[in-house]
């Protein structure tokens, strides 16, 4: 037998090299991309996307009644929004579905203890799991970009809109995937981890807007009946709504695009508020995407380290 004694690697590896050589990423990607499965999934994904876009185009074309057919800019905009909508669904549901079983699956398969007695650090383990899940989700997102480009052929969509939306989607993909990974580290089974993951994702994307909507419906009669509703209160309400939009993925995408297209600004815009006093005041509002990116990046960092901490912890039970 050859000598098996290994000296620990002393040469410091770069961050990229460590990511590229992460054994968990290599193993997961090797397994995931093996055989026909990955090819079939990608093909079906693209067929569904293409079919969906064709359907949207046909529906829009038949609905348009102008003498020169549908306005190509509007068609481009609809295609862009549709593909973006599908990407959002991928990020919220498919990404976390990969990570929700990443750690709990190791526990269920009884391979978790084998890994924990190796020299693989908790950070490398979590990063490897995250990267392998994200790689596949990002692959699904990136292969749809040529379909997005159809929107450019039609016009009506600016490059900055595409770039901004893709940055927001990418950051969301990381955060939602990490949420799934964190749930997976806390739960014993993949089923319970998946339930917690989807419940959390649904609450953030659908639950909060519904709760806000309900509150505003309940409170609107009080505001309408109020004798004095100052411009400051109106401005505060607008800031609060923009803040809430900045916590929600679909709202951020929609409002940021509106600010970009309607107000012609990437960062901020001004609007007039007057309350019931009749006087007009100008308030400056920020587009929600910077707040969204800051919040979601911070959340991603917190979730990453919370998961690492959970994995590193030596069991007491």
């Amino acid at each position, binding site marked *: *037998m*050859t000598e*098996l*004694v*290994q000296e*620990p*690697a002393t040469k410091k590896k770069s961050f990229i090299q460590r990511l590229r*050589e992460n*054994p968990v990423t*290599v*193993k997961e990607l*090797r*397994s995931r991309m*093996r*055989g026909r499965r990955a090819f079939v999934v990608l093909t079906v994904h693209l067929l569904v996307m293409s079919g969906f876009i064709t359907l949207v185009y046909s529906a829009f074309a038949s609905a348009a009644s102008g003498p020169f057919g549908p306005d190509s800019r509007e068609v481009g905009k609809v295609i862009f929004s549709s593909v973006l909508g599908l990407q959002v669904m991928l990020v919220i549901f498919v990404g976390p579905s990969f990570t929700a079983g990443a750690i709990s699956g190791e526990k269920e*398969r*009884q*391979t978790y*203890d*084998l*890994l*924990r*007695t*190796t*020299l*693989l650090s908790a950070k490398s383990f979590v990063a490897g799991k995250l990267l392998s899940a994200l790689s596949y989700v990002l692959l699904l997102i990136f292969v749809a970009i040529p379909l997005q480009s159809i929107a450019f052929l039609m016009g009506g969509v600016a490059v900055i809109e595409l770039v901004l939306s893709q940055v927001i989607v990418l950051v969301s993909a990381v955060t939602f995937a990490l949420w799934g990974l964190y749930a997976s580290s806390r739960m014993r089974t993949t089923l319970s981890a998946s339930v917690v993951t989807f419940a959390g994702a649904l609450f953030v994307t659908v639950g909060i807007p519904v709760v806000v909507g309900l509150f505003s419906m309940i409170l609107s009669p009080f505001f309408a009946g109020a004798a004095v509703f100052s411009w400051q209160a109106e401005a505060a309400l607008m800031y609060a709504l923009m803040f809430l939009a900045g916590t929600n993925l679909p709202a951020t995408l929609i409002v940021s695009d509106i600010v970009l297209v309607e107000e012609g600004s990437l960062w901020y815009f001004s609007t007039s508020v007057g309350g019931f006093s009749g006087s007009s005041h100008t308030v400056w509002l920020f587009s929600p995407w910077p707040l969204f990116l800051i919040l979601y990046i911070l959340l991603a960092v917190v979730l990453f380290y919370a998961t690492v901490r959970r994995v590193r912890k*030596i*069991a*007491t*039970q």
Partner: protein
Amino acid sequence: MSTIIEIQGLTKKYGDLTALNDLTLNIQEGEVFGFIGPNGAGKTTTMRILTTLLKPSSGKAWVAGESVIDNPRAVRRNIGYMPDFFGVYDDMKVWEYLDFFAACYDIPQSTRLGMVDDLLALVDLGHKKDAFVDSLSRGMKQRLCLARTLAHDPQVLILDEPASGLDPRARIEMRELLRELKTMGKTIFFSSHILSEVADICTSIAILEAGGLVAYGDMAEMKRQLRAHRLIQLRALGDLTPIQEFLLRHEAVESIITSEEMDIPSDSLRFDFTGDDAALSQLLASLIGNKFQVVAFQEETGDLEDVFLQVTKGIVN
């Protein structure tokens, strides 16, 4: 020989249940140490603490001089662990499995390929290199897992029930493999409830019951200590009655068992002897000197099952 595993007052409690109670033992380098006990005796708990997977409620333990509580990473570098139940990954080939775990031990890629071949040759799985792990038999998986524990050339192998669930042939192969590892200088700490196997290959044993240590020491010494006197079997030609009378007059002979009392051949008898080797030799000489036609005269060694039954009370099952 120096101490490679040191356990001092190790206790593990789960609520009111004491799984391990004040366990203290030392294992010397190069030993094959058998850890015996009924189910629920605390064997796996001890092993999980030694492999840094579980925190003890109190007490300390060191492996290769490193504390399992204060320096788990250094301990992991020195141990190879095979749990009683372990899983394998789907969609993974045998060589990929070993390569993955070798990478988890920071072994450089350039070394891994040759090392995988060597490990597979050691466990006689070279012909299964490109087979999927899932397709292997239980015995093969067990051997593969043993190869995995050797990937980083650890000093100590901690094996929890390595032969459980194996058919007789696979058990023999596993036993041979453990013998080979012993000749390679590995310290093997393994648990088992198959006493004949433990007796075959162990240099020392510890018997655990209800979380407490009931017997511990060198294999031969244990058998000697636990047996108050020696059991000698004698076979002779002719009538055995004069021999019986002669033996009863000897001060070191305590009692005689004949074929009428026990299932032994009719030309044989057994007697308890309290003297040492010199006294036993003298007894044989005097039998011959008195013209008794002795054909066989040998000490019954007794087996580990006797020892086990003698020291345990069947508290847990």
